[in-house]
């Protein structure tokens, strides 16, 4: 049986802004709502035509569980259109696209709004379990005596917050922080600090020179508290980045021996992206002119301690399913969670020993640098975890259009030891 094809009609995103900067006042709901409203405006479609809204979001806002539903309603989708939030850590925004395709295959709808939203600025702080218990006791106390006793049970340490973001960026299974998994890869595959910094500088400079491409994706975000009343540029890009300047930064995760710094890692960022996708019949019925087609995709698992290698086997799976080779790809878009991690992936697809270490029988070929992340990546643009997956697909499409190319392989590593990859072609 031939699987139905999923077409991407259009897409847009908010500007990506560093945590605590211009978009810090906006919740994941606001960001997602903005992306979807602008998507509806750009495409001019009637929201009632949409069969479901599927959004990725990693740190679900406590005030908006199933954030996709809240976003959809506020963006003006009719109440009868359902919405779900998907969670596959860093690939959540891409998972939303996959889920839409699976819905389409199963005959559950044919027009979807997909994407992701993340406000890392608004990740909550928590109280520790013992502190929470003391608060519960206090709230249940009725008499003055029990209240006083409950109150004096508190210790200063109880008021130290548990940082939600830190929890989120730590894999509870391997007990390693994401940065520490990058250090593992750097050591195992001998990725030098210099190579990482050079890659990071490349990302910054490419992102800067491709800012017109990013501009085309971005819908201006109107915000009273910004100086001009609106934001329409990503604010993480450093046009003056050089490997020398980056070399001065201290390693964050392993201060003594490490090589992973804030400069050669992805940035912690707020942002949202949304795509309108639909099956072939719907495309024909509405006379839409889709910009791209999802050819195939795969999600695979790997060692959580080396989660950065996720793309290796995920790309392998997509190549297997499609019958393409790496040489058939005009462009590659691999999420830059860490420079060390992307460089490790490139080594693993090429070098036989490394390939074996990554779980491949034989190398896949080569990802030429001149085809990889040509508009920069998350090191420059930032990595709002729930939104990145959708952003990568959008960026890949704009790149293909820009360069008159046809086919791209998009992939990212996933905290907890997974990889996702998708092959897309322009229509």
């Amino acid at each position, binding site marked *: 049986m031939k699987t139905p094809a999923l077409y991407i009609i259009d897409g847009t995103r908010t500007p990506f802004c560093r945590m605590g900067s211009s978009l810090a006042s906006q919740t994941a709901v606001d960001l997602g709502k903005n992306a979807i409203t602008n998507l509806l405006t750009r495409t001019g479609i009637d929201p009632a035509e949409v069969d479901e809204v599927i959004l990725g979001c990693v740190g679900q806002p406590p005030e908006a569980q199933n954030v996709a539903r809240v976003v959809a309603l506020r963006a003006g989708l009719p109440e009868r259109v359902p919405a779900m939030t998907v969670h596959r850590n860093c690939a959540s925004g891409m998972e939303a696209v996959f889920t839409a395709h699976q819905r389409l295959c199963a005959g559950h709808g044919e027009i979807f709004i997909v994407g992701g939203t993340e406000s890392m600025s608004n990740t909550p702080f928590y109280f520790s379990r013992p502190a929470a218990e003391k608060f519960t006791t206090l709230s249940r106390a009725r008499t003055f005596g029990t209240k006083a006793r409950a109150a004096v049970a508190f210790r200063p340490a109880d008021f130290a917050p548990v940082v939600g973001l830190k929890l989120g960026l730590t894999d509870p299974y391997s007990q390693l922080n994401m940065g520490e998994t990058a250090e593992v890869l750097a050591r195992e595959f001998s990725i030098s600090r210099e190579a990482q910094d050079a890659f990071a500088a490349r990302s910054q400079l490419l992102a800067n020179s491709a800012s017109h491409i990013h501009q085309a994706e971005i819908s201006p975000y109107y915000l009273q508290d910004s100086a*001009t009343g609106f934001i329409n540029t990503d604010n993480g890009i450093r046009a003056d980045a050089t490997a020398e300047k980056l070399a001065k930064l201290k390693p964050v995760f392993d201060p003594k021996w490490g090589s992973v710094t804030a400069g050669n890692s992805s940035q912690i960022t707020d942002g949202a992206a949304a795509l309108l996708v639909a099956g072939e019949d719907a495309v024909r019925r509405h006379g839409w002119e889709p910009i791209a087609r999802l050819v195939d995709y795969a999600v695979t698992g790997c060692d959580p301690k080396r989660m950065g290698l996720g793309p290796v086997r995920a790309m392998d799976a997509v190549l297997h399913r499609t019958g393409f080779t790496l040489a058939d790809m005009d462009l590659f878009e691999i999420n830059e969670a860490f420079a060390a991690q992307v460089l490790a992936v490139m080594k693993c697809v090429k070098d036989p020993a490394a390939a074996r270490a990554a779980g491949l029988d034989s190398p896949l070929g080569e990802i030429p640098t001149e085809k990889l992340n040509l508009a920069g990546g998350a090191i420059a643009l930032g990595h709002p975890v729930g939104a990145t997956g959708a952003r990568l697909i959008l960026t890949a499409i704009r790149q293909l259009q820009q360069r008159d190319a046809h086919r791209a392989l998009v992939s990212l590593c996933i905290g907890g030891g997974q990889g996702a990859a998708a092959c897309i072609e322009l229509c």
Partner: protein
Amino acid sequence: MNTLVLDPTQDPDQDLQMTNQPREVVGTHFLYRIDNDGLCWMTFDSPNSTVNVWSTESLTELASHLEHLSHETALRGFIFRSAKERIFIAGADLKSMRNLPSSGLQKLVWLGQATFDRLARLPVPKVALIRGACAGGGYELTLACDYRIAIEDDCTRIGLPETQLGLLPGWGGCTRLPRLIGTRRALDVILKGRLMDARNALRQGLVTHLVPAGHAEDTARKLLKQPVPSAPHHWDRSPLVTPFLRWAARRKVEGATRSLYEAPLRAIDVVTAAASHSVEFGLQLERDALNHLLMGSQAQHLIDLFFQREAASKHRPAIGVAMPVHNAAVVGAGVMGAGIAQALAARGLSVLMTDVAPEALAHGIERVRDLTDTAVRKHAIDRKTARDTLDRVSTSCTPVPLTHKQIVIEAATENMALKKKIFADLAARSAADTILATNTSALSVAELAATVPHPERVIGMHFFNPVHRMPLVEIVRLPETSPDVLATAIAFVQKLGKVPVVVQDSPGFVVNRILMPYLLEAVRLVEEGVPVERTDNAMLDFGMPMGPLRLLDEIGIDVANHVYHTLREAFSDRLPALKTLDTLLAAGHLGKKSGQGFYLHTKAETKAKVFSATANPLDADSIQLRLSLVLSNEAALCLHEGIASSAGDIDLAMVLGTGYAPFRGGPLQHLDSIGRDYARSELHRLAHSMPAPNPFTPAP
């Protein structure tokens, strides 16, 4: 009256217990039921109508029911409610009152008082269950009850709007309200004359309880079982205090209205006197004052305007089907564009606001947000409503498809070439049946319509600035405009809570066409050496909300000049050429926005400028006559040319669009008030004494 007593039992043994059996009495306007607990549930349900109003018939019937109930020994409590969904009682039936002779009016005033007094004297606790509009005489009925329970509902609106109609609450409102909430607050409620939602009514003390629908009856039963609490004591009802309150209130009202309106001043007198005297005395004062006001011209004019406004707000054209509009676009994010977008979004429409640059959109969005925030601050809407309003406004600075918009309103700057370009672009991006509306104040809609395919969907929609405050929208229909498009535009404007007046495509339409010669005549007075302040004060005394020269400064000399030139092309035989406007323009004195025009505008004060060394001795009366005749004469010409379909439409448009003294009823009504022959002779005199061209040649 056909009353029908249902006997629930045929068993003679039970006849002794009859008083404890439920009984039902069905009248014409009322039906009531006395239940097992001895509670009388009185339901107001006027036949063949969606509203309940007080007329001679309904009052007489209620009085007779109350008379029967007063002999009911087993009665324990009384509950008054309405069977209508959105109306409790809309007040007195003004329509039938207009046809009553003066003796009939006096009788009606007495009948209302007597009926409500009878209710007040009913020796059991009484409750009014208020859901929907409860205005004027409707609220005065509830004042005769011990408890007023408002039911949570969006359509619940409570208040005493009589002073807005040139009347005063004369069925116990002026007397009983101060006893309930104190003199000061009663004065505030009666003088503002605003209808409040249930929450505000509770806050102001107009109702005693606020309950969710479904709990009202139980709440009433509970309250009726308890003893009625004694009336609250209000220190400001003391005869030592009320004269001071009267003085303070009069001072305030006299300042705000230049003592032009009779009703609020009479209301102050009655409320303050009734507060410190007996109920009987208060009712007597109410009756006298109301009878006096009912005979005056102010109330007649204000009530006429009220009806005209109601008619325009509900008007459905005879042919043409109104299509529902829920998705709209506004082109241009300037002051008008943003104002229109906000008005649409506030009424539940999705609205796309477009402009060429994000900078412009940022200003537009900020304006929408400011208007919405202000509404929250004034408790007009809650935070969720504000958020939803803002969520409904989307933006774009690139050309996006408009195929799903039912209406697109262009609100760009007043430039025909630009508007034509925009319309061509809009026509290309929208569906063939998308209504294309232009918010122009003077440009030709026909010229614009000629440039697009399907001109039958083009219409003019002239909103006034500031959009959120101005209720008028001139709808400009072209001969080719389709009946469906016109019907849709009318219904759309009504949905926005605005008043549509349909006008023909003629330069300046109705409002600017009539206003401009008046403003120019005021400028001519300046050129003749009449001091700026004298002219403006004369017209303030006439009842205008702002003097003409001050208004020119507010509008902006450049904007006014633009409208002037558009009109002068068409009416060169009537509009004078004036050098003062050009002089001001050349000097960059554009009015308030540039710091000076006819006035000097500084942060601290606004001061009239001196334009002539020798002051012209022309007195205020002559100024008033001359300027008001310009307005009335131009209005008569508009009517003669068929720009609007009726005199009422023109009067309404002028009152709502320019604030023309409402108590005078409008420029055409004013013509009747001063006498058409007198006006004609004065116009002839002025036409001959003024240099041509002048606007005084009398309309045919």
